């Protein structure tokens, strides 16, 4: 069932294309039934999960890698899955109305459905690799959503930032998860199960004790923090506001950014409760919590304001995981639910304001109180919940957060830090909320606003934010029921089954007092909202700009590197190659291979052998120093002849003959070739280059001499050569063993060899005869052949059948008649 649920979520993606048709608002709500169906299905499972525990399903995928499509539905998954599909339903309907005039809605919904499937996969996954599979898909689909308006550079930039940061985190996460799996294997978990979440959690305490725990967690944290936009990876989230509002509301408030939180919550019972875990999470989460809240109220763009408050909230959630304990778990799940409700409502209403007024700039709004009263109510409720004003669900959540900090059993300063972060954030939220509300709805309408015909939107659009907003108001009425629903989720985070009771008023206690104090301070400061916002308390270093600079730096480095190493000069490349040869072959030779060279017994050569062999260096010097091409050719032929003579001297008749004949042919070819070259060689290189090259050449020569000595005198084993001598006549029916080897013993080599010649022939034929006249721009890029004067007559595009290969040959003399 779980598997089919995820598959269904992916399968509905193509249906999104239906939304290309009018009326889009209606089609949108029609399509919203698809996620709603999943939502309903999930609801039917609540009872089972609450009463009977998790549901597990497994499908084999790549069992040898420990990658199974394993899905688990427990309290925590259920909470997330319901949020995803529930808010998803509202978002799809909302998108239909919001993007009524946009032909691309179909594409948008395809991405959205794909994202939904991926997100469901993440929260239902019962195997860390399965989870990673879907995790990456959320990154990719969100990239497509953020870049939806890809004609705009900002959208591309935002999308790219988001993908690079979350993708980077994803890869870190993969390494971390693989390390977890490796650690699990170390402590005795079966290989096929090493990546199953329940197995990892069960072996948690032993894994914590391994060496891999620290690095694994470091990488997992990187993954979670990037995904959940924790400081200092937070900046992609405001950038992601380039996405159409429905996507922002869904991805960047309710779902994707919570994946990091979800992951940590999932791992908490096994991996949590260690100093590394708690202190890292409290520090990062707490800082982001406070930082986000304070940056939030300085924003003018409503979506940016909401984005910063979102990342602040995410910090809060991570702080709760860091604080740990029962209360931490309880506060976490409560906050998740509360945040999902009010933040999606706020984003959607922000979209409505944008949609109706044409702007999201708080300085260009105002007085919407009369024009959009219903919207104002929704925003008001959602903001009250965010601020944590009593009787709202957000209040309950904040209460529990305070409790988690107060009751935490961490060592001394940490709970206090957590508490401070919560209070700072609470104050910040109040200022931000007030700022939003006042500037948008109160006061006099901005002239820009009046120009538009501004009014409340259609019900089709308004219903979507209304539902979660009113739920924030109504849920406190059913707290016992909510508690039953949340208890399994909290148990999953805590690691042991327990139940808890949420309440609105638990008597006057520390938490309540702190809460009220924060509200008081917040209200006081809120009156000073304008001055605070203008005040540069927190120099807002733009993370996005820093990141851009980093990327530019990397690019500049890459370009410099490419320019330096890829110079285009062949001799530089050859130098690299020779350098590599010295490193790869030379160094091992000096270390290992040199050993026996000094002890070689050598027989003394005859006089004529000395003459023949020493003519080779003479020839080389003649070649190098030759001033004319003819001299060089003669010198090289002489070397070739000496090589042939060496073959003669040492009883290799066939070789000598072949070498001699090949040498003759090569010389003829060289004579042809050199007729295009200048008849005298020029000295291109300055003297120091020549000396440098000479030194390199001599060093290379010495290395090779050594290699020859070492190789020729090391015979580790008996050669197989005598076999050929013995078998030549009985098996090969020939007395010339070399030839028998060529045509019988190793005739397969010879076959390849004649193919080489054959290929050489047709390659040379094509090279010399085929010249594109009309440059093949379409296939070979921008290269256009310049026809040289001498080439004008060279015929193009004819094969051998035309016979006329060159204009210079009269057509009557076709020689290339095919056989």
């Amino acid at each position, binding site marked *: 069932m779980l598997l089919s649920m995820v598959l269904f979520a992916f399968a509905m993606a193509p249906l999104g294309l239906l939304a290309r048709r009018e009326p889009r608002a209606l089609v949108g709500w029609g399509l919203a039934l698809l996620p709603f169906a999943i939502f309903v299905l999930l609801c039917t499972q609540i009872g089972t999960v609450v009463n009977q525990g998790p549901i597990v399903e497994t499908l084999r995928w790549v069992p040898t890698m420990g990658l199974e499509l394993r899905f688990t539905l427990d309290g925590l998954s259920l909470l997330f899955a319901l949020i995803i599909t529930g808010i998803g339903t509202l978002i799809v309907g909302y998108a239909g109305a919001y993007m009524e005039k946009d032909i691309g809605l179909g594409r948008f919904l395809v991405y959205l459905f794909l994202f939904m499937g991926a997100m469901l996969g993440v929260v239902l996954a019962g195997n860390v690799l399965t989870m990673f599979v879907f995790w990456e898909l959320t990154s990719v689909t969100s990239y497509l959503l953020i870049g939806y308006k890809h004609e705009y550079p900002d959208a591309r930039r935002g999308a790219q930032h988001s993908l690079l940061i979350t993708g980077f985190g994803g890869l870190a996460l993969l390494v971390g998860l693989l390390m977890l799996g490796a650690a699990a294997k170390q402590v005795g978990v079966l290989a096929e199960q090493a990546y199953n979440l329940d197995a990892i959690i069960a072996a948690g305490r032993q894994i914590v004790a391994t060496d891999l725990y620290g690095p694994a967690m470091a990488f997992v944290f990187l993954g979670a923090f990037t995904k959940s936009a924790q400081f200092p990876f937070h900046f992609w989230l405001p950038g992601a506001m380039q996405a159409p509002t429905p996507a922002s509301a869904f991805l960047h408030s309710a779902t994707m950014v919570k994946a990091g939180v979800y992951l940590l919550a999932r791992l908490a019972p096994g991996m949590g409760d260690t100093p590394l875990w708690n202190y890292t999470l409290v520090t990062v989460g707490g800082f982001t919590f406070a930082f986000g809240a304070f940056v939030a109220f300085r924003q003018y763009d409503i979506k940016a304001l909401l984005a910063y408050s979102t990342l602040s909230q995410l910090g809060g959630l991570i702080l709760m995981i860091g604080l740990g304990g029962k209360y931490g778990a309880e506060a976490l799940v409560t906050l998740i639910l509360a945040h999902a409700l009010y933040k999606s409502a706020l984003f959607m209403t922000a979209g409505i304001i944008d949609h109706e007024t044409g702007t999201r700039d708080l300085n260009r709004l105002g007085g919407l109180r009369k024009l959009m009263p219903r919207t104002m109510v929704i925003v008001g409720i959602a903001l009250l919940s965010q601020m944590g004003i009593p009787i709202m669900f957000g209040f309950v959540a904040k209460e529990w957060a305070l409790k988690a900090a107060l009751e935490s059993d961490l060592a001394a300063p940490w709970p206090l830090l957590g508490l401070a972060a919560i209070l700072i954030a609470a104050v910040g939220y109040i200022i931000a909320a007030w700022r939003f509300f006042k500037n948008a709805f109160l006061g006099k309408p901005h002239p820009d606003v009046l120009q538009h015909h501004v009014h409340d939107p259609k019900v089709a659009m308004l219903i979507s934010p209304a539902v979660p907003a009113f739920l924030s108001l109504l849920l406190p009425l059913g707290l016992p029921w909510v508690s039953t629903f949340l208890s399994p989720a909290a148990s999953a985070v805590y690691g042991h089954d327990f139940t808890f009771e949420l309440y609105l008023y638990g008597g006057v206690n520390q938490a309540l007092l702190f809460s009220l104090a924060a509200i008081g301070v917040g209200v006081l400061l809120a009156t000073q909202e304008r001055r605070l916002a203008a005040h540069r308390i927190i120099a807002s270093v733009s993370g996005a700009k820093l990141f851009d600079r980093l990327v530019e730096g990397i690019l500049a480095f890459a370009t410099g590197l490419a320019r330096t190493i890829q110079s285009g000069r062949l001799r530089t490349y050859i130098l690299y190659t020779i350098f590599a040869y010295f490193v790869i072959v030379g160094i091992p030779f000096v270390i290992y291979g040199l050993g026996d060279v000094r002890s070689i017994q050598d027989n003394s050569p005859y006089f004529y052998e000395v003459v023949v062999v020493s003519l080779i260096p003479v020839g080389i010097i003649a070649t190098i120093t030759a001033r004319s091409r003819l001299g060089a050719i003669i010198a090289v032929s002489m070397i070739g002849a000496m090589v042939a003579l060496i073959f003669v001297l040492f009883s290799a*008749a*066939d070789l000598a*003959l*072949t070498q001699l*004949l*090949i040498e*003759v*042919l090569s010389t*003829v*070819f060289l004579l*042809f*070739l050199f*007729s295009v070259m200048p008849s005298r060689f020029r000295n291109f290189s300055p003297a120091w280059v020549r000396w440098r090259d000479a030194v390199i050449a001599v060093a290379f020569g010495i290395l090779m001499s050594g290699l020859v000595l070492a190789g020729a005198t090391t015979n580790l084993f008996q050669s197989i050569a005598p076999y050929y001598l013995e078998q030549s006549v009985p098996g*090969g*029916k*020939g*007395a*010339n063993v*070399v*030839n*028998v080897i*060529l*045509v*019988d013993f190793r*005739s*397969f080599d*010879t*076959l390849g060899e*004649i193919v080489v*010649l*054959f290929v*050489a*022939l*047709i390659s*040379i*034929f094509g090279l*010399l005869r085929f010249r594109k006249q009309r440059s093949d721009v379409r296939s070979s890029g921008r290269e256009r052949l310049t026809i040289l*004067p*001498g080439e*004008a*007559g*060279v*015929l193009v595009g*004819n094969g*051998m059948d*035309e016979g*006329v*290969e*060159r*204009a*210079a*040959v*009269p*057509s009557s*003399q076709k*020689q*290339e*008649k*095919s*056989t």
Partner: protein
Amino acid sequence: MIKATNYDSIVLRTVARLMMPLLLLLSVFMLLRGHNLPGGGFIGGLVASSAIIMQMIAFGPEYARRVIRVNYLGLAAVGILVAVSASVPALLVGLPFMRAFWLPEAIPGIGKLGTPVVFDVGVFLLVIAVTTKIAMLLSEEPDLFPMHMEQEDEEGVTGAPKA
């Protein structure tokens, strides 16, 4: 009209003319004796193509083209086909590719005949075709072989597009 090139060397031409049949004969001889004495398909082929290339140098490529009317590309393909055809029969009767078959009795003057000899003939043909054709291709390039080009210049043919 093909004329002799103007780097006249009577000696070279005479030698080339005389040597041609001798060298071709020698090449076949080299091919056939190769199984028992130094020689073989490669060496035979190289000797034959040296003979042809010598003609080419002596009389110019057009002359060589006209006198020895061979489609070298086709000949090269035939060489491959001959070499492979000598190797396939074994495969057809379920023996490994290139497994040798021999006639039971030696043929006087030539020696034993078998598929390796046929294979060697394929090598021989291919080597002739490849080396000669490459030499011809190079020699026919307008920029190469400058003496030959000067000749064409006299006739006013160079550079005139025909096709």
